[in-house]
C-alpha cells in the first residue's frame, strides 16, 4: 500500500508544482482507480515480513532507534546524572509560582473544585417545581451530561438505569433522593478498580506517565515527586521527554524543588535509554521510586506509540518494577479522551488515569466514559499549578462535584 500511496502522492506533487493544479478533477479519477489496488496492497502488506515491530530489540535500549521514533534526530544516549537531594529550594527562583497553603487533601480538594453549574442544577429546579420526574427532567439531565463531556453512550446508560429505577418505584420525585441516587450511580461507574497508587516492597518501583501533548504530565510528576518525597520515599525523576524543547529543564526544576534525584539524556536521545539509566541509578541508590516522564504524543501516530511501547518494556525490565502506567487526561478534553485512553491502553496497558486541570470550568466527564467503557480507574485529580494541587480520587466527592450538589445543600 505504501508504494501506491507514495506513487499517487508523488505524481500529485509533480503535477501541482509544475502548475497543473486544476487537473485535480481528472486526478480524482486516477485515485479512485488506484483505490482497488491499494486495498489489495493493504492485505498483502500485512503478511510481508520485516515489519518494524518485529525488529524491535528487547535487549538494548538504544539499538533500534531508526526503526522507531522518526523524530529522534540523533542517537546519542549520553546521560547526565545529578543528585539534587541536598540542593535547596531557592534554585527554583525563576518561577513565580505561588505555593498554596499546606492543607490536608479532602477538605482542600472540595474547595478547589469548581462549584458552578453541576449537571443536576437545572433538572433539580424542574423537579422541585413539578414534584415528579418527567421527560423534561430527563432531557435537562441528558443535556447537562453532554455539556460535561460525559458522552452520549454513557449518558444513555445512566439515564436508562434511572428510568428503570423510576419504573420500579425506587426513585420518586424527591430532589435529595434523586441527587443521592445519581451520586451513587456515578460513584459506581467510577468504581472499576483500586484508586491507590501501587508500589512493591524494595527499591526500583517505576511509575510511567503518558499522554497527549499539553495535558500536564511534567507538572503532575512534579506534584507526585513532592508528595512521595514528603512521605519519606527516595525518588528519582527520569526526563523521558527528550523531544519537547526544555522539557527536561522543566522537570529538573521540579526535581530541585522537591529534592528528588534527576536523570536526563541528551536532547533527542532515545527516551528508553534515559529510563534505563534512571532505573539503574535508582536501584543502585536504593531509591524507592522512579517517576518517568514521556514526551506528549498523539495516540494516532504509530511510530511514536511504538517508541512508547519500548519505553514501557525497558521500564518493566528487572531490576525495575513497573507498578503504574498513568495516563494523564486534561479535564477540558472532549470525546477524544476515550480514544486516547483506548489507544494508550492498547499500547502500554494503562493502570490508571490522572485527570488534570479540574480547577477550571471543565467538568472532566469523559472519565466516566473511560471508566464505564474501558474499566480504567481514575487515581489522581489535579487542580492547579502548585505542588500541593494533586489529590487521590475520592469517588463520592468527585461524583458530588460533578452533579454540583452535596448532601448539605439539597
Amino acid at each position, binding site marked *: 500500500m*505504501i508504494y501506491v500511496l507514495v506513487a499517487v502522492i508523488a505524481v500529485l506533487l509533480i503535477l501541482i508544482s*509544475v502548475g497543473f493544479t486544476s487537473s485535480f478533477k481528472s486526478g480524482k479519477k486516477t485515485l479512485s482507480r488506484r483505490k482497488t489496488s491499494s486495498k489489495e496492497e493493504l492485505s498483502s502488506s500485512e503478511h510481508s515480513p520485516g515489519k518494524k515491530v518485529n525488529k524491535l530489540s528487547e535487549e538494548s535500549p538504544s539499538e533500534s532507534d531508526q526503526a522507531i521514533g522518526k523524530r529522534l534526530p540523533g542517537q546519542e544516549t549520553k546521560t547526565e546524572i545529578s543528585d539534587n537531594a541536598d540542593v535547596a529550594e531557592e534554585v527554583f527562583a525563576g518561577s513565580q509560582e505561588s505555593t498554596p497553603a499546606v492543607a490536608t487533601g479532602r477538605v482542600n480538594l472540595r474547595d478547589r473544585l469548581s462549584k458552578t453549574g453541576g449537571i443536576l442544577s437545572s433538572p433539580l429546579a424542574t423537579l422541585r417545581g413539578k414534584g415528579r420526574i418527567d421527560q423534561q427532567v430527563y432531557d435537562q439531565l441528558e443535556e447537562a451530561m453532554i455539556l460535561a463531556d460525559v458522552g452520549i453512550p454513557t449518558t444513555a446508560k445512566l439515564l436508562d438505569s434511572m428510568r428503570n429505577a423510576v419504573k420500579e418505584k425506587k426513585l420518586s420525585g424527591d430532589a435529595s433522593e434523586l441527587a443521592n441516587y445519581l451520586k451513587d450511580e456515578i460513584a459506581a461507574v467510577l468504581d472499576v478498580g483500586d484508586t491507590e497508587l501501587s508500589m512493591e516492597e524494595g527499591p526500583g518501583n517505576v511509575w510511567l506517565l503518558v499522554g497527549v501533548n499539553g495535558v500536564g504530565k511534567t507538572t503532575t510528576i512534579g506534584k507526585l515527586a513532592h508528595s512521595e518525597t514528603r512521605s519519606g520515599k527516595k525518588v528519582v525523576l527520569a526526563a523521558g521527554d527528550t523531544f519537547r524543547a526544555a522539557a527536561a529543564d522543566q522537570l529538573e526544576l521540579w526535581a530541585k524543588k522537591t529534592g528528588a534525584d534527576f536523570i536526563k539524556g541528551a536532547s533527542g536521545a532515545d527516551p528508553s535509554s534515559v529510563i534505563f539509566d534512571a532505573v539503574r541509578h535508582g536501584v543502585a541508590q536504593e531509591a524507592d521510586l522512579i517517576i518517568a516522564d514521556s514526551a506528549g504524543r498523539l495516540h494516532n501516530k504509530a511510530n511514536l506509540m511504538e517508541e512508547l511501547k519500548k519505553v514501557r518494556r525497558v521500564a518493566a525490565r528487572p531490576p525495575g518494577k513497573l507498578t503504574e502506567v498513568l495516563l494523564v487526561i486534561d479535564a477540558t478534553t472532549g470525546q477524544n479522551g476515550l480514544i486516547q485512553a483506548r489507544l494508550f491502553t492498547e499500547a502500554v496497558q494503562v493502570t490508571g488515569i490522572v485527570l488534570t486541570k479540574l480547577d477550571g*470550568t471543565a467538568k472532566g466527564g469523559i472519565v466516566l466514559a473511560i471508566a464505564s467503557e474501558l474499566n480504567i480507574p481514575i487515581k489522581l485529580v489535579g487542580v492547579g499549578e502548585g505542588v500541593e494541587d494533586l489529590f487521590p480520587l475520592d469517588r463520592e466527592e468527585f461524583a458530588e462535584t460533578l452533579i454540583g450538589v452535596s448532601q448539605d445543600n439539597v
Partner: protein
Amino acid sequence: MFENLTDRFEGIVKKIKSKGRLSEEDIDSILRDIRIALLEADVALSVVQDFITNVKQRCLSMELSKSLTPAQQIIKYVNEELTAILGGEQLRISYAPKPPTVILLAGLQGSGKTTTVAKLGRWFKQQGRHPLLVGADLARPAAVEQLRILGSEAGLAVFSEPTDPVSVARRGLEEALRVGRDVVIVDTAGRLSIDQVLMEEVRRVSVAVQPHYTFLVIDAMTGQDAVNTAKAFHETLELDGIILTKVDGDARGGAALSVKQVAGKPIAFVTTGEKINEIETFYPERMASRILGMGDVLSLIEKAEAEVDKQLSAKAMDRLKSGRFTLDDFYDQIQQMKKMGPLQSLVSMLPGMPKEVRNANIDDADITRIEAIITSMTVGEREEPQIINGSRRSRIAKGSGTSVTDVNNLLKQFAEMQKLFKSSGVMGQLMNSSSRKAKKKSKSGKSKR
C-alpha cells in the same frame, strides 16, 4: 477503527443517497444522526441545536429542485450550514502601517501556545517579515527556555527577562522598535478562564502592548468547555481570531465549530504537527468539505506549492511523459514528499480515499526503508533496475539493512508503477486534461490570491 466525523457523515450521506424521496420522518431521522455525529465530535450543544434547527427549516421548506434529488439537497444544506458556521470568511493579516505589528497569544495551559508562537514566527519569516518572539510566560518552569530553543531552531530572535509578564511584553515591544523588527509575537502563560487574577494580568499585558491581533490558542481535542473558554477570553481580550492546535490528532474537531460560533471570530491558523513548519492558514470551506468527506485538496496544493522544488518536479514531469521515470526520480519525489510532512497527514487531505486507507496505520518508517534500499543501489541499478540480479539483490538488502523480500517488493512495485505511468490510460489522461485546463487555472489561480 473509530468513526470520525467524516466517516459518520459518509455513512449518513450513503443512507440518504439510496433514497429518492424523503418523508418528514426520514428528515428527522437523518437530523438525529447528524445531531449525534456533531455531539460526538464535541461540537457545543447550543451550536448543534442551532445547526439542526436551521437545516430542518430549510429541509421543510425545500423547493423541489430539478437537478438535485431531495437527498442531495439535504447534503447541500448541511454543507452550506457547516461552512457558514465555520466562517465563510478568512482572516488575512494586514500589517500595521507603523511597524511592528503586534500579535498576542493567550489560552489555557497546554493548548500549545509556546510551540505556536515559534511556528507563527517562522510563518511570518516566510512571508518576508522579521519577527521577534517575546516570552512572557514566566509561570511555567522552563517555558522561556523552550521558546528560546524553538526560536533558535527556526532562526528567530527571542526576547525575555525574568521580571513580570507585563513589563516583559512592554520591553519586548521596545526591543523590537530598537532593533527594527516588524512583527512581535507575545507568548503568555496558560491560564484558566475563571482565574480572575491571571485573566486581569493578561489583560494588562494586552493593554501594555496594544496588539493588532489577539489570538486564542485552543486544542482541537477540547470538549464542550471550548465555549466557556472562548467566551471568557473574548470578553477579556477582544479576540481577533483563533488558532486551532493539534489538528493532526484524530479528534473530530468540533471545538472549531463551537469556538467560531461563540466568539464570532474566524479561525486564523491551524497547526498540524510537531515540526515547526506544520502550521496552515485556515480555510472554512476546506474544513467544511473535510468534515463532509471531500478531502482537503486545496490545503495540499498550497502546501505543495510552498515546499516542493519546482525544477525537480519539472524534470520528473518530463521523465514521466517520456516514460523514463527512474528510481532516482522516485527517490527525489520521496524527498519532496517528506518535506510536506508525515505521509498520514498527506493521505488525510486526499479526497476519495477509502476509510480503510485513511485510517490505516501509515508508518513513515516504511518510507525510510524504501529510501535505504534505493540509496544502496549503484547509479546503474537505479537507472535500469532490470539489471538487478540475485546477487545484486542480496548485496542491496545487506547494504540497506533490509531483507531480499523487501528489495524484491520494491522492485516489483516500482515496475508496476512504471507500467502505470507508461500506459497512456492514467498519465495521458492526466496530462491531457491538465494542459487543457492549465490556461484556465492560471487565471483562476491569480484571482484567488
